[in-house]
């Protein structure tokens, strides 16, 4: 195998497809930390020159982790539609990019091609895309899923209401839930990150949120983002679970670090279909984020973008209601600053959509990353422009439990007003019915948590 390009008279040789993929990546501190990033800006482009000429078949045949030792690779490869694959396997990555962007290529055509894609192909084409390419490409792909609500329709953007509390106080979480609902947040899910992962505490939060949903007849679903085994136990004991949640990683070894396997996820998915209370059929909610495999030393010298793309291939097996890339949570040793965080958010959204997933983004940062709320607001706008399915809603964007900053209740109302986007249809009708939303904006009654004390 020869993988060589020449630029300005300089010859660049690459030892493997994995090396080409890693060096073609936009700069990421995680890839630098792993020692696999391009050593110069020129080498980065030289790698892209090679990548553009690689046929999709070579990417399938050279997965980041071998088929024999990794169940994530097996899940993705086994799911490839061979008929569609035989049509596209000879496409070069550079041509694949142009095909996605061509005005003659429709969203449905992309969705058909998607049935033959592996994570490495998705990652490969993403590395050749500029930020605007990622927006234009993703915008074409409408992925609609249904649980209680219908998420993903063009022209809508949803918000996960994240009413976390440092010690899981039921009353504190209820108060934050009321505040979020009063701003029109909560149509993607009312989803709590618990600090206590016990079955009893998680069940208590599931029951409280279900009670709020029932009392106010809110068209949405609830979720407590405990470990999936905890949620399975809650379900078995009769607790009201709307969506089943789990964080995923891009290799079997990294997933073992999360305490999960394909077998366990299969079991959870079957249990959700049997016991979750909403209509479905999409009952799962996954979270991802570049850098997780490296942090578990389970990246096999592959770059963090490629490992992320593989997560989407795994997620697709479960036809989830929504997938969320928690883009800036991991810290500056993986995504150093707002430039890298912005890029990763757009990449992940595009890759998820290309894989066939309803994609949200926790547009966020930690205090030791070089970012401020202004840059988070910028990415939120870019994400909405790309057709992103949902963002987070947290009181003033400051999570009182997880100590990071993300998008706020105000932000979801703002992005809808500024970009003429709507809440999810069932939820919008509900908001209008109770008088919090009219003609595409908040009414005078909105933004007041005590509104919800009347029932």
């Amino acid at each position, binding site marked *: 195998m020869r993988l060589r390009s020449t630029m300005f008279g300089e010859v660049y040789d690459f030892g493997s497809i994995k090396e080409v993929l890693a060096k073609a990546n936009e700069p990421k501190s995680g890839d630098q930390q792993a020692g696999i990033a391009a050593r110069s800006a020129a080498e980065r482009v030289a790698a892209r020159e090679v990548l553009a000429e690689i046929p999709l078949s070579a990417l399938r045949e050279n997965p980041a982790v071998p088929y024999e030792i990794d169940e994530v690779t097996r899940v993705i490869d086994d799911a490839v539609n061979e008929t569609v694959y035989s049509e596209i396997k000879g496409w070069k990555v550079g041509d694949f990019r142009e095909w996605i962007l061509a005005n003659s290529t429709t969203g449905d055509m992309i969705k058909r091609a998607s049935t033959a894609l592996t994570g490495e192909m998705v990652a490969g084409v993403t590395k050749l895309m500029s930020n605007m390419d990622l927006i234009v490409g993703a915008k074409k792909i409408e992925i609609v899923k249904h649980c209680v609500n219908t998420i993903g329709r063009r022209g809508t953007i949803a918000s996960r209401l994240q009413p976390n509390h440092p010690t899981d106080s039921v*009353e504190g979480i209820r108060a934050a839930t009321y505040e979020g609902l009063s701003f029109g947040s909560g149509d993607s899910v009312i989803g709590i990150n618990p600090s206590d992962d016990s079955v009893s505490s998680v069940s208590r939060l599931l029951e409280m949120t279900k009670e709020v949903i029932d009392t106010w007849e809110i068209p949405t679903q609830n979720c407590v983002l405990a470990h999936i085994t905890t949620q399975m136990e809650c379900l078995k004991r009769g607790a009201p679970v709307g969506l089943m949640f789990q964080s995923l990683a891009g290799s079997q070894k990294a997933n073992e670090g999360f305490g999960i396997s394909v077998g366990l996820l299969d079991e959870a998915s079957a249990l959700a279909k049997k016991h979750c209370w909403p209509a479905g059929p999409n009952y799962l909610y996954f979270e991802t984020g570049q850098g997780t495999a490296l942090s578990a030393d389970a990246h096999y010298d592959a770059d963090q973008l490629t490992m992320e793309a593989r997560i989407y291939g795994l997620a697709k097996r479960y036809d989830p209601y929504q997938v969320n890339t928690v883009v800036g949570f991991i810290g500056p040793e993986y995504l150093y600053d707002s430039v890298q965080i912005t890029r990763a958010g757009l990449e992940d959204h595009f890759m998820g959509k290309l894989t066939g997933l309803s994609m949200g983004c926790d547009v966020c940062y930690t205090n030791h990353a070089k970012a401020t709320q202004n840059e988070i607001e910028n990415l939120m706008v870019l994400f909405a422009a790309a057709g992103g399915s949902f963002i987070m809603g947290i009181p*003033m964007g400051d999570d009182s439990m997880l100590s990071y900053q993300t998008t706020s209740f105000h932000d979801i109302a703002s992005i809808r007003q500024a970009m003429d986007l709507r809440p999810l249809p069932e939820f919008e009708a509900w908001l209008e019915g109770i008088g919090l939303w009219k003609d595409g904006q908040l009414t005078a009654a909105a933004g007041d*948590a005590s509104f919800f004390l009347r029932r």
Partner: protein
Amino acid sequence: MSDLETLVARVLAELRSSDAAGAGSAVGTTPTARPQQAATASGSDLDIDVPDPTGEAGRLRIGVANPVDADALGNLRRTTSARLAVGRAGPRPRTGSLLLFQADHAVTQDAIYGVVREETKAAHDLFSVTSQAEDRQTYLLRPDLGRRLSDAAKAEIDKRCKKGVDVQIVVGDGLSAAAIDNNLADILPVITQGLSSAGFSIGTPFFVTNCRVGVMNDINAIVRAKVLLLLIGERPGLGIADAMSAYMGYDPQPGKTDADRDLICMITRGGGTNPLEAGAYIVEVIKRMMKHQASGVRLREIVGEE
């Protein structure tokens, strides 16, 4: 009078009226209403003296205009430290809550990119060494380098420190210079006095710049103390930028991990464990380590067995 001046005067007037009304019960004026005219007519006799909005009263202040139930809203607000009942200006936050958020974030940035004051180190006779992370950017990008001592640091420690003592105390900047500047003077005397009264020998204390917790292993490979205590700045959260952690390990050596250490976190006068109390507690933990010659998971197993 400029719009900005009008705005500042209005915010000031609101803050004063909310102070008069008492914490948590004041209800904001309608933000969509036309800004009120300030009492002062020209810039020359402006007298602006904004009270500190970062205290509890400022944080609990209700910003919602005309709530359905103002008392109940105050009660909801007090159920959580989350920033609730802040109100809005159209879909955006009100000016006061926007600036309070910015104030909270600003002190985290100053803490992370700040440098521990020379006076702080001098007051406790701490000499300084640096990890293999030579500057702040490298430190943030490469946690592995912050866990290792540079060759110069190793030589300096070897030259200046007593060897084979019972307890070696090390101070590191970590992710918050403010944590060290604000807490060291309180916590260190309590620890040294407590350890001395317990009859333990104490090594030569020093300071590590661009320090991560794992550097404990490299340090003890040189000083060979029985117990190593590292006081280090935590990653600042919004609103609390000066929290310190105390990591303690029995016989730390290369290869030891967090499972081999004991930790007291959130040491700060601003809503965490008071540094004086934390110092006393640290002494108790070290006594236990010395008694059982163990730390971390192993120590908990031994203590659990008793």
